């Protein structure tokens, strides 16, 4: 990552680390939610941005991670994060492996629709059968702990834990994108035929990326379930798969920073248009403001929010030489 970009990311994480000191408990909860969605967006960025696989069923893995967290926790004693978190991630990754193994036989828009089909199947299993506790969802009575020094029931420690997870996932994906595996994924996105001609069996690579992405989405689901202490079938609906896809496109595809910026921008835009203070009674029609700003971002920012500084720089300094590997 070039110098200016890593400074920007370091600055973001520093601000996030300091935020709880200045904000009240609602602000901590709110930013925790955005960070959970940032992890969820990063999982999709690995698929869409890095490998070029547009998955429209990511909410299924998110939901499985969340439901696993609640179904595996007992009502009498708090379960330990040490085993609960890996199990939830493994459950989501397991379903991702199954879905990936089958859906990677298709290409392009057909792949998009097959992933949607598998996600809708998971949604209806949870929505219609007693397994998922029906449409009213289930409660998580005791939130998981880690020994004596992490208790996820307290807002600030959950905030810290989520920030740590976000940092770890971001760092892991940044390193991964630079590794041989990451470069192979980038090659598959740009020209899969050339990759096969040089000797890369692309199917196992895509399947590994799909499973890894499912696992990270499961982590985000785990955190969301622990934050709310309540899971509901709507967490696996296609609306959430669509929303997270919108986040990474809004932020800018092909950049990890894009997923981060997109998650925050999408949430803050909603808050802006919903706030009574600014829009008064018109706040009821917040969809209009959000929709218009999304359309404006497509018109004005072809490469998403992450491309904004470069666009401004190129407009001021004349066309800059595009090159190098985007990260």
């Amino acid at each position, binding site marked *: 990552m070039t110098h200016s970009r890593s400074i920007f990311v370091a600055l973001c994480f520093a601000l996030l680390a300091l935020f709880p000191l200045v904000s*009240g*408990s*609602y*602000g901590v*909860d*709110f930013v925790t*939610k955005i960070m959970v969605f940032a992890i969820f967006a990063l999982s999709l960025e690995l698929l869409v941005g890095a490998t070029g696989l547009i998955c429209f069923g990511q909410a299924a893995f998110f939901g499985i991670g969340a439901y696993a967290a609640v179904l595996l926790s007992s009502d009498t004693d708090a379960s330990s994060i040490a085993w609960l978190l890996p199990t939830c991630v493994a459950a989501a990754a397991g379903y991702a492996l199954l879905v990936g193994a089958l859906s990677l036989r298709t290409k392009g828009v057909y792949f998009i629709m097959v992933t949607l089909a598998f996600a809708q199947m998971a949604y*209806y299993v949870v*929505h*219609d059968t007693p397994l998922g506790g*029906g*449409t*009213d*969802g289930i*409660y998580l009575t005791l939130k998981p702990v880690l020994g004596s020094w992490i208790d996820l029931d307290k807002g600030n420690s959950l905030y810290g834990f989520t920030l740590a997870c976000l940092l770890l996932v971001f760092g892991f994906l940044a390193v991964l994108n630079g590794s041989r595996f990451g470069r192979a994924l980038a090659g598959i996105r740009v020209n899969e035929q050339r990759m096969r001609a040089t000797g890369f069996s692309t199917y196992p690579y895509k399947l590994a990326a799909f499973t890894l992405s499912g696992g990270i989405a499961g982590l985000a689901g785990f955190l969301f379930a622990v*934050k*709310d*202490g*309540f899971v*509901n079938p*709507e*967490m696996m609906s296609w*609306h*959430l798969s669509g929303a997270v896809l919108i986040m990474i496109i809004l932020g800018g595809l092909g950049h990890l920073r894009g997923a981060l910026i997109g998650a925050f921008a999408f949430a803050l835009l909603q808050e802006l248009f*919903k706030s*009574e203070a600014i829009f008064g009674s018109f*706040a*009821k*029609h*917040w*969809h209009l403001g959000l929709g218009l700003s999304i359309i404006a971002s497509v018109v004005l920012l072809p490469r998403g929010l992450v491309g904004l500084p470069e666009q401004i720089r190129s407009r001021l300094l004349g066309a800059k030489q595009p090159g190098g590997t985007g990260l």
Partner: protein
Amino acid sequence: MKSILFRTTLIAAAAALLSTAAFAQTGAKLKVGLMLPYTGTYASLGNAIENGFKLYLTEQGGKIGGREIEFVKVDDESDPSKATDNVNKLVKRDNVDVLIGTVHSGVAMAMAKVAKESGTILIVPNAGADAVTGAMCAPNIFRSSFSNWQPGYAMGEVMAKKGIKKVATITWKYAAGDETVRGFKEAFEKGGGTVVKELNLPFPNVEFQALLTDIAATKPDAVFTFFAGGGAVKFVKDYAAAGLKKSIPLYGSGFLTDGTLDAQGADADGLFTALHYADGLDTPKDKSFRLAYAKAYKLQPDVYAVQGYDAAQILGIGLKAVNGDVSKKAEFAKAVEAAKIDSPRGAFSLSKAHNPVQDIYLRQVTGKENKLVGVASKALTDPARGCKM
């Protein structure tokens, strides 16, 4: 020069002191958090509840229980996955004193959980999920509407008394549908009837033809159903279009025809439904309420407006008992439990689990109105299964 300086600071200090005193004396405004659906399929229900609530406020001269009200509104979009954050916005950021909401059962469940933990007073103006005054019951959670079990049970009694033997049920496969049908089945089978077939389809699917044909094939004596909103409009029209209306009488919970009659037109004529409100109750309270509502909002009130109005009444009763001090939770609850709420639907009181003990009326659709026919069951109390309060 110094003295002038001294004098001005003295006056400033006094003024500051006075204002805070005045401030304390009349009491700060009571913060009421309205968490209702302002967008999506239930938007019109959200508006009706808010109108009903505010009507009571204006009737009391802008104060409830001696306190002025400051509203903080949040759109819950009937989306359970966003419910916890929306409630936290009201409870933690705006630290509201009272929570009013909502329509969708899934969202109400999330609200109940947060209210139970934070202790904030929650009055549910619609969501009928049995658990809200069942497994999730709490001293600070009240409901001004109904439990899904109630209308179902009442209609079960009515149909059993009418001597109907074989009934088929049809509804969406989600909480409201399942619980209503369960209530119906309990009463109907106790009255000697048998449910020959239970049909359901995924929510919000509205393709009924296949199941209507299945009903025709099983030839039950009657059909009991639960649908609401757009689904209710379509089901009643499809049922009539399929010619079943003449041969197999259709009974339902009140939501099948409440707020949807002009959309359903003639297809809804003659349908029997059971609900805790009806048109043409002509009790003095109902007449004055309908007049005031029509004058204030230029449209006829429906059951949702009544439930919003009664939520405000419950709040008023509780606040009067604790003369505006919301922190006295126990007295608030005791007062409300003991009170008799003079509602347009008819006076009712709250059960131990804080769900209305109310008459469920039998109504028939005549001339675009759910005309009162009689009382389906008198002072029906929800069994509040799983409530340990």
